[in-house]
């Protein structure tokens, strides 16, 4: 047997292994999608009935504190706060944490809402590193509190200050640039009303707002963005953040609730010590710690997901910003899995430890290594005549074709399930984006994730970097929304 034969056999074995990995990964996603589809149809059929109104008219329903950390959000903050105050919910307050902004974030708020400094007592229920400098309320009678604090460069620290300053038993943590549908809060709180003793956290759907028309803080027309980078993310968010999470929630395995829109019981947040300022993936870290605490104490609990509760957020439209974001997510996931390594593959932690965390370890964290190595291996093997052409074609059909099928299925589920009033052109472009997502973008994404994992292994501390904001358009046509 020659060296060439040995190398060929080894390559062959490795390629079959990677092929098996792609089949397994895509099949897991298919299972999640099918589960999510059933759940989404159920939730949407439920909306035809009057269930949400029960939450709205229920005078003993839980009051909600909407906590919004803000750092240099001058272009969007006033409209964002107005929109949160205008959410359809019987009793809420909005707590804005101005985390050491260097622009006029606070000043525009002060002017718009006639803020007056009031000596609020803010207990340290969870640790906060940055000193609170002052607290303000609105003279206009809005249920609005603004907390000004010194920045420590950590959104988690700002969130914790918001937890301490809030007064209600349910906290809705949102980003300052998040746009919620008018009924999103009603919908996302419903699990707490239906099952008040067990539900401890609920996630909602995150969608890309780019290209859509936002009028007075609400999405009035859903449109696709023009840049293909953003269009692909629209489909990606659909698959991963809507259907993927709905599927996991249905299996009682939801590990991540987005930091842009997550709702928690305040007492549980305090119990687990709030957000960890040292964590990059502070949102995933929080939910992992909640799971751990509940399981360690053997308390019955549920982490739910409401697919119809929508939060719209701006996604990066440039590859550089997107790459930075994805590397940060990968570093965050690495940190969480390391911090909670005791839970991984540990049956004591039920489905979360036994199934979900191993999935994230194998397919989300280490997956990029295999994916890229597999592609390189097959291409190189073909080039050197070490790989059979038939096998190479099979590899690409499974790796790309199966992936395309899942992305197209996501668009189909959204079209059939949600029945949004969408232009045919936008639907067609979504389907094209579903194909493109798997050819080129996915491999680039794997490269970023690999880079992020490498940074995590090296313990490299890389900051968030600037996010280019375009601000909300007020009845501006889609063409002029993006630079």
């Amino acid at each position, binding site marked *: 047997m020659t060296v060439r034969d040995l190398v060929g056999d080894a390559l062959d074995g490795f390629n079959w292994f990677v092929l098996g990995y792609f089949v397994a990964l895509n099949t897991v996603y298919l299972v999640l999608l099918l589960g999510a589809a059933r759940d989404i149809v159920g939730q949407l*059929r439920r909306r035809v*009935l009057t269930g949400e109104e*029960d939450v709205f008219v229920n005078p003993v329903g839980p009051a909600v504190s909407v906590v919004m950390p803000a750092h240099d959000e001058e272009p969007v903050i006033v409209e964002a706060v107005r929109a949160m105050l205008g959410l359809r919910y019987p009793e809420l307050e909005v707590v804005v944490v101005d985390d050491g902004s260097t622009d006029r974030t606070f000043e525009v708020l002060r002017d718009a809402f006639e803020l007056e400094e*009031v000596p609020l007592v803010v207990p340290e229920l969870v640790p906060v590193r940055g000193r609170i400098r002052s607290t303000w*309320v609105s*003279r206009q009678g809005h249920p609005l509190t603004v907390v000004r604090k010194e920045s420590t460069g950590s959104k988690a620290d700002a969130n914790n200050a918001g937890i301490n300053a809030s*007064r209600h038993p349910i906290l809705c943590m949102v980003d300052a640039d998040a746009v919620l549908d008018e009924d999103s809060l009603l919908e996302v709180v419903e699990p707490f009303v239906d099952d008040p003793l067990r539900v401890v956290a609920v996630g909602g759907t995150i969608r890309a707002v780019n290209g859509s028309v936002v009028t007075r803080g609400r999405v009035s027309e859903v449109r696709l963005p023009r840049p293909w980078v953003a269009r692909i993310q629209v489909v990606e968010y659909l698959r991963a953040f809507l259907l993927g999470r709905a599927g996991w929630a249905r299996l009682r395995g939801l590990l991540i609730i987005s930091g842009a829109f997550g709702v928690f019981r305040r007492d549980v947040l305090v119990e687990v010590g709030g957000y960890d300022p040292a964590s990059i993936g502070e949102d995933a870290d929080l939910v992992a710690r909640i799971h751990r605490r509940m399981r360690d104490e053997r308390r019955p609990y549920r982490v739910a997901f409401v697919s119809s509760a929508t939060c719209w957020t701006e996604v990066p439209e440039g590859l550089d910003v997107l790459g930075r974001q994805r590397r940060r997510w990968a570093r965050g996931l690495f940190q969480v899995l390391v911090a909670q390594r005791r839970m991984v593959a540990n049956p004591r932690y039920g489905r979360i430890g036994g199934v979900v965390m191993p999935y994230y370890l194998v397919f989300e964290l280490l997956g990029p290594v295999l994916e890229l190595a597999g592609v390189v291996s097959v291409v190189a093997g073909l080039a050197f005549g070490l790989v059979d052409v038939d096998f190479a074609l*099979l590899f690409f059909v499974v790796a790309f074709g199966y992936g395309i099928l899942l992305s197209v299925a996501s668009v189909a589920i959204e079209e059939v399930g949600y029945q949004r009033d969408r232009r045919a052109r936008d639907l067609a472009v979504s389907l094209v984006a579903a194909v493109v997502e798997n050819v080129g973008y996915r491999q680039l994404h794997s490269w970023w994730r690999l880079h992020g994992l490498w940074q995590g292994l090296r313990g490299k501390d890389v900051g968030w970097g600037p996010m280019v904001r375009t601000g909300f358009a007020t009845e501006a046509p889609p063409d002029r929304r993006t630079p």
Partner: protein
Amino acid sequence: MSLRQVLTGAGVAILLANAALLLLVAVHHVAAALRARRRARVQEVLRPHLVRLATEEDAELPIVPRRRGTLLELLALDMLRKVRGEAREALVELLRDRGSARDAARRLGRPGALGRAAAAELLGAVGSRDDVALLRDRLHDRNAEVRAAAARSLGHLGDDGAVRPLVGALDGPRTVPYGTVTVGLLRAGPATVPSLREILTGWPTVAGRTMAAEVLGLHGAVEATGELVDRLGDPSEAVEVQAAAAGALGRIGSPRAVEPLGAALDPGTGQRVRVAAARALGAVGGARAAGLLGPLLADPAHEVASAAARALPGCGSAGIDVLRAHVVGGGAAGAHAREALALAELRADRSRAV
């Protein structure tokens, strides 16, 4: 099977699946658009007639083809949610004349869950007391949505005979969500008070007694003050029930409740009950309540001290005097007092501006 065969099979399967999905999406999109346009056209014709029927005494509906019957029903139901009084009665009569209530009663027994739930909702809108028994049975339906719809509809029909089945639906293998039962009992109105008083004192489960206390408070049932005071003061009672009783007493606002609420502020009582009692004292108000709340400003539990401070302005000038006295004293109590005074002054400024 050769590699080429596997390849071909996989490729064909994936291609066919993609093609089928694309076709499904395209067909669905076109069909949905056509359906929406057709519905809008029909609604444009029917809606003005329904509005005239609801608002004019002698208006009559033109003959509506059978195939438009479902859409007419949906439109009428949608309008029912938005109108009151004679307009509502006219629409209910229309739907009853068309046999909608009869059809809905029949559909309650059909296999499809969504159909049963929609039928239960319809009965709540146009049904009568005769339908209460049918809806009570649906509280044990195997489908959660049907149970919830039945609970809501029983609330709309406002029959006292539905109170115990509704509260009973909180427990057992097939339950109705707590919030849905609460709203149902609220909608049923003050006629439910006698049954709720009995449930408060004699129901075997904590959820039931808690629910009864909350709804009695929301109904402002002064006659239930005695039972609520008893539940609040019973050390063997569950914390949830005690807290709900305190909240109810605050809503009712009877001065009889001041001393029992004051007793519930004792440090030996659970924090949740103490916070509820403090808030309730602020809602009842008066000088005595202010006197009971004052010492809590220095309570080591932040939630208790904060609740007491924010409740004091509700006690009128006596409450404000207590706060001012504590500002002078300083410390944690002083901080809570300063916060409450500042917020009270802002509220007063707004009232003066109006």
